[in-house]
């Protein structure tokens, strides 16, 4: 780890000012990803701004009937929050399928959004990586790419976003609240993370002086028909090969609205609203689920070791939708 100076932010404005005056500074909260990256010499901030004592650690109701998750609430406290468990069980399930209990006790909601890819070439400073060093080249495209993306890739980067929480947040159409030098603004979760394109070094659309203050969940929680299916190499404490967040609103056997987001397959939580809409007004049958799965994966492209993910994702989509649709009979 490189040496750095340390300061503790007393309020959000102070934290934003610190970040704006020193571009080599970084905010730190849970630290579970940043400290790891610093130990690997991948992240080399010259100054850390400790934001853990800012008043962003509450979960509260919003005026429109939704729920506001403070940026500094831990992943564990969010997943086990009574309101989240009752109204947004999909989010609770997704969070609890990621990391370990220790890490979930440390990691914050804001940090979960900002965690970086676990592409092993990104972590290995002895290999070229466009995300770590723009222009250096990508070692994964022709390398060992079993964990890598099959959707939305570019010729510069095929890394995936590793979060489970963000997959559920995308399905719930969460909104990220941020604060910066030029004021406060909101960013829909769908627009928060970026595809790699020609700038894989930039993961998100958060400004350099901006800080996440909260994540807002809209009122609709899909608590009756949801599923989070995570397929991985071992049963627990591993990143997804493919994950699927499925949420349905039904009327009898007919689907009124479907939300479907994939994790482990792209540089951001992957949602295809056109394909989703194929389910509107349709019966919840395997055949209809298969049509959507084919539509979502139509443009998928494998890179050898990860080509299996295309078929795996289709099957995971069908299974997750089946689980979501059948929930009432299972209960």
């Amino acid at each position: 780890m490189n040496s750095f100076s340390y300061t503790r932010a007393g309020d959000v404005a102070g934290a934003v000012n610190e970040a704006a005056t020193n571009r080599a500074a970084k905010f730190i909260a849970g630290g579970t990803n940043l400290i790891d990256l610093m130990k690997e010499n991948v992240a080399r901030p010259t100054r850390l701004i400790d934001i853990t004592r800012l008043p962003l650690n509450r979960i509260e109701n919003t005026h429109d009937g939704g729920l506001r998750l403070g940026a500094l609430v831990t992943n564990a406290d969010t997943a086990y929050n009574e309101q989240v468990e009752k109204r947004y069980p999909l989010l609770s399930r997704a969070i609890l399928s990621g990391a370990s209990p220790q890490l979930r006790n440390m990691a914050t909601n804001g940090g979960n959004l900002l965690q970086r890819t676990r592409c092993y070439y990104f972590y290995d400073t002895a290999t070229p990586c466009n995300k770590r060093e723009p222009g250096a080249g990508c070692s994964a495209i022709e390398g060992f790419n079993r964990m890598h993306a099959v959707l939305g890739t570019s010729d510069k980067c095929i890394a995936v976003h590793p979060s489970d929480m963000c997959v559920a947040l995308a399905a719930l159409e969460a909104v990220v609240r941020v604060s910066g030098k030029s004021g406060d603004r909101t960013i829909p979760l769908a627009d928060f993370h970026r595809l790699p394109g020609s700038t894989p070094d930039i993961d998100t659309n958060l400004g350099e002086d901006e800080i996440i203050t909260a994540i807002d969940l809209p009122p609709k929680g899909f608590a009756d028909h949801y599923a989070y299916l995570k397929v991985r190499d071992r049963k627990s404490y591993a990143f997804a090969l493919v994950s699927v967040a499925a949420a349905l609103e039904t009327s009898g056997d007919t689907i009124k609205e479907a939300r479907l987001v994939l994790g482990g397959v792209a540089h951001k939580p992957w949602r295809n609203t056109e394909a989703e809409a194929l389910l509107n007004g349709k019966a919840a049958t395997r055949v209809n689920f298969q049509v959507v799965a084919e539509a979502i994966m139509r443009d998928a492209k494998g890179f050898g070791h990860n080509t299996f993910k295309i078929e795996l994702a289709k099957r995971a989509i069908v299974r997750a939708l089946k689980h979501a649709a059948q929930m009432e009979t299972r209960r």
Partner: protein
Amino acid sequence: MKNEPENRITLRVNGAEKQMNIAPWTTLLDALRDYLDLTGTKKGCDHGQCGACTVLVNGKRINSCLTLAIMKDGADVTTIEGLADGETLDPMQQAFIDNDAFQCGYCTPGQICSARGLINEGRATTADEIRELMSGNICRCGAYPNIVAAIQQAMQTIERSAKA
């Protein structure tokens, strides 16, 4: 903004107040081992993957290797050295002995602190739930069946003493 060039911090470790001067990049794990000579907490992978460094901070289990000590200024820390009451072992320690829940013992302090955190959280009752919620602690010797048995025993002991 408060700048702290001296980096003097206070931790309450196993019930005793400890002050130390540290660099900002000193992890809680290194502070415990190198500054306070509490070497019970182990450095395994040093990347938050193995759980050998698990300690309780304000009652919650965390990976001390991914925690900067300076950020925990004022916190209450419990390590494996702080669990026993004098010569009387904590029920979790006793249960690990009774169930032969280790071989080399390197992961054991982290396993026991993690299991203590698991009981504080109150989310696990079945063996399956214990296995899932102990997934952050790796045992190279593969003592998992006995670790789960030990945790089940300790849960019963602790539950009984809470009722008494």
